[in-house]
């Protein structure tokens, strides 16, 4: 593999010249660039190689990958927000949603995916917050992908032990007398918080209400606001 001739080379005390991907021109280095010099990381190369091999072995097709990537891009908190907004305007739906989110979501044409999702309702006395301390389990079909902080050591370690302090870091304070239920999503269930409908939203239609429902209030670290 040559990167011969050109202006990308620079002189080196030991007489070697280097390709454009070396990061430290002063250190001893063999003249041939090797895989460690690549601008792709080891993991990116592994991902590409594993995917190519699986396609060649007939285990995956490029079309399947494409379709899966498109499905992933289509997931967002909008799905969860629709359920919350409907629950806010329809008391009976709220009960059905809490009882069985799969059948309730299906009423709106939504698929909650293969894992059961338990909807935990906030009340004036109880505030719910979700975490997965062991990894990053999350209700993807309703909320899309988890934010980096949800998967972080800080959140996973601290929200189970000092939930009120963590909520404060998100700018959320709870009224006196409100107790907290922290749900650790450590096994086969997934969770979504059904926040309380905020004040100042009388007369708003479902679509306008859904726009108030953020991902973070369905995780339980914030509360929705009217504007």
């Amino acid at each position, binding site marked *: 593999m040559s990167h011969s001739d050109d202006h990308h080379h620079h002189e080196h005390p030991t007489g070697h010249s280097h390709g454009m991907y070396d990061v430290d021109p002063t250190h001893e280095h063999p003249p041939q660039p090797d895989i460690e010099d690549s601008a792709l990381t080891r993991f990116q190369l592994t991902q590409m190689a594993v995917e190519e091999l699986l396609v060649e072995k007939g*285990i995956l097709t490029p079309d399947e990958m494409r379709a899966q990537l498109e499905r992933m891009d289509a997931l967002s908190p909008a799905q969860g927000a629709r359920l919350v907004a409907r629950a806010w305007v329809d008391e009976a739906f709220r009960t059905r949603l809490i009882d069985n989110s799969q059948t309730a979501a299906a009423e709106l044409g939504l698929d909650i995916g293969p894992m059961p999702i338990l909807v935990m309702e906030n009340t004036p006395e109880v505030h719910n917050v979700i975490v997965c301390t*062991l990894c990053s389990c999350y209700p993807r079909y309703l909320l899309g*992908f988890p*934010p980096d*902080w949800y998967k972080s050591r800080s959140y996973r370690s601290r929200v189970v032990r000092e939930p009120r302090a963590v909520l404060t870091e998100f700018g959320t304070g709870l009224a006196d007398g409100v107790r907290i239920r922290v749900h650790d999503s450590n096994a086969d269930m997934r969770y979504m918080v059904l926040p309380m409908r905020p004040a100042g939203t009388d007369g708003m239609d479902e679509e306008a209400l859904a726009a108030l429902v953020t991902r973070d209030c369905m995780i339980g670290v914030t509360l929705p606001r009217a504007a």
Partner: protein
Amino acid sequence: MTESNPYRRHHDMGGFEADPVDTSEHDKAPWEKRVDALMRLLSDDERQLLRVDELRRAIEDLGPDVYDRLSYYERWMSAITQIMLEKKVIGATELGERMARIDAREQAARND
């Protein structure tokens, strides 16, 4: 809560002391989305080549240093690779050869 309890595994972190939560976010890079897609497809009903439980186990077995050093999707990619090797879906040598081939191809493309 004892931080250094030898019976406690590194990923099992509920209750540890830690820094304030950094709420900044990053968009997933294309390769990260592909890692996720690989995981979903390999574990689907049609293929059933791996289970999420196997990946979790492989990630937990990376050990504390590697667990902390790698990013979220780097951990998943390590785990997917390990399980595919364990199950003999791919072999180590062919993987190495393919990685070298891709690396050369990508470097050549950058040199153009």
